[in-house]
C-alpha cells in the first residue's frame, strides 16, 4: 500500500515515526529522572540556605515557608525577592532573603542574606554574579573570605556611614583593582537590613505567597 503512495507522503510518515520514537524515549527518561531532578534542585537550595542559618537553630520546613515580595523602588530592581523564614517551634528565628544588587560591574549580583530576629546578619553568600574573574570574584566564598566580614553586623553596631567600602569612608575592604563589586554588595546588604527593620513583623506574619506591598 505504502509503496504505491507518493514518496513525499512515505518520507513524511517515516519522519513522523522517527519523531514519535524520539518523543517516546524522551518521555520515558523524563518520567524516570523527573523526581530526582526536583529533589536535587531542592537539596541545592537547602544547602545554600543552611550555609547562613545553622540547621540546629530551626525546625520548620524552610523551603515551604517562603514568600515573595517585589519592591522596585526600595531595592532598585524589579526582580521579586524570595524570603525563606526559619522558625523554631513557631518562634521566628531568621529571615533568609535572596536579593539582587543592581549595580555590579557586569550587572546583577544575586545575594543570599540571612538576618536573625535582632536584625543581625547571620551570613551573606553570593548566589550568582558575572563580575570579572580574578578582580571582582573574591565576593564568592570559594575565592576569599571577604563575604564573611558581614557576619554579626547590624544597623546597631555599624552606623550608616560605615556601611561602605573603605575607599568611600566605610569599614568594608575593597579588592585590589575592584571597588565596584564590593561596593554593590555592601549597599545591597545595608539596604536589605533597612528593609528588614522596617518590615520585620510583616515579613514573618504574612502567610500568603506574595506579601502586601511595603507602604512606607
Amino acid at each position: 500500500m505504502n509503496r504505491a503512495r507518493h514518496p513525499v507522503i512515505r518520507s513524511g510518515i517515516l519522519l513522523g515515526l522517527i519523531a514519535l520514537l524520539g518523543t517516546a524515549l524522551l518521555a520515558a527518561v523524563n518520567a524516570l529522572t523527573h523526581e530526582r531532578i526536583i529533589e536535587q534542585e531542592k537539596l541545592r537550595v537547602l544547602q545554600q540556605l543552611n550555609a547562613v542559618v545553622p540547621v540546629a537553630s530551626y525546625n520548620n520546613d524552610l523551603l515551604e515557608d517562603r514568600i515573595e515580595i517585589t519592591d522596585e523602588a526600595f531595592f532598585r530592581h524589579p526582580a521579586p525577592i524570595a524570603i525563606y523564614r526559619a522558625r523554631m517551634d513557631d518562634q521566628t528565628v531568621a529571615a533568609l532573603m535572596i536579593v539582587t544588587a543592581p549595580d555590579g560591574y557586569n550587572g546583577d549580583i544575586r545575594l543570599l542574606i540571612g538576618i536573625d530576629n535582632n536584625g543581625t546578619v547571620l551570613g551573606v553568600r553570593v548566589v550568582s554574579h558575572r563580575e570579572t574573574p580574578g578582580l571582582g570574584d573574591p565576593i564568592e566564598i570559594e575565592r576569599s573570605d571577604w563575604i564573611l566580614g558581614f557576619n554579626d553586623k547590624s544597623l546597631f553596631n555599624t552606623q550608616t556611614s560605615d556601611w561602605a567600602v573603605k575607599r568611600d569612608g566605610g569599614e568594608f575592604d575593597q579588592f585590589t583593582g575592584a571597588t565596584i563589586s564590593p561596593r554593590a554588595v555592601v549597599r545591597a546588604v545595608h539596604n536589605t537590613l533597612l528593609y528588614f527593620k522596617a518590615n520585620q513583623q510583616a515579613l514573618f506574619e504574612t502567610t500568603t505567597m506574595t506579601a502586601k506591598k511595603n507602604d512606607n
Partner: protein
Amino acid sequence: MTTEQLKNILADGAWRQNTGLVVLLGLCPLLAVTNTLVNGLALGLATMLTLMVSNLSVSVLRGLLRPEIRIPAFVLIIASVVTVIELLMHAYFFDLYRILGIFIPLIVTNCAIIGRAEAFASRNRPLPSLIDGFATGLGFCITLVLLGALRELTGRGTLLAGAEMLLGDWGHYLTLVVIPDHPGFLLAMLPPGAFFGLALLIAARNAWQARKSATSVTAMISDSNEI
C-alpha cells in the same frame, strides 16, 4: 570487519581526523568549557556518548532513511540522544550539570556529530559506526582534556580541581596543586586563553606530524614556496 579496518577507524577518529585539532569542528564547546580539566573531561565524555549512540541509531536506521529526509532524521535522532543525556546528567551529576549548563544541550549543534552521521554511520554497518563514534569522541575528548589541563595549570596552578563533581566525594583527593600559591593567570582562564591554548595544541600536533613524515613536509614546503 578486519583488524586493519578497525585500526583505520580508530586512528582516523582519534588522530588523523581529530575533530578538535584537524577538522576543527565543535569549537564553540571546545573553547568555552575547557577552563579546567574536569570540565573538559565531562563535556568530552558526554559528547563521546552522544556520538556513539547517534552513530549507532543512524546506522541501524540507514536502510529506512531516504536521502531527502536523512538530515532532518539525523537532527531528530541527535536531539533526542542529547536530551536524554542532559536529563540523566541533571539527575545524577547535578553539580557538573550546573557548571556545564548550556553546553550540554548545545552538544546538538556540534557539527562533528551530524558530520559523522552523514559521512560514516549512514554508509556503514552498526558495529563499525559505533566504533567510529567512539574513536571520534575519544579524539574530541582528548583534545578537551589536554586544553583543559593546559589552561587549568597555567591559569590556576592546579590539575583535576572539581573532580568530586564527576566522581563523588573522594574526588577531592585527586586535585593536584602543582604550583602552590599560584597567583592566578587570568588570561588562561578567560576566552582568549582558550584560543591561545588551542593554537598551541594544533601547532604541537602539526610539528609532531611534520617530524614523523619529514619527506612529505619537504614536499609541502616546496609546494607552498611555489605559491
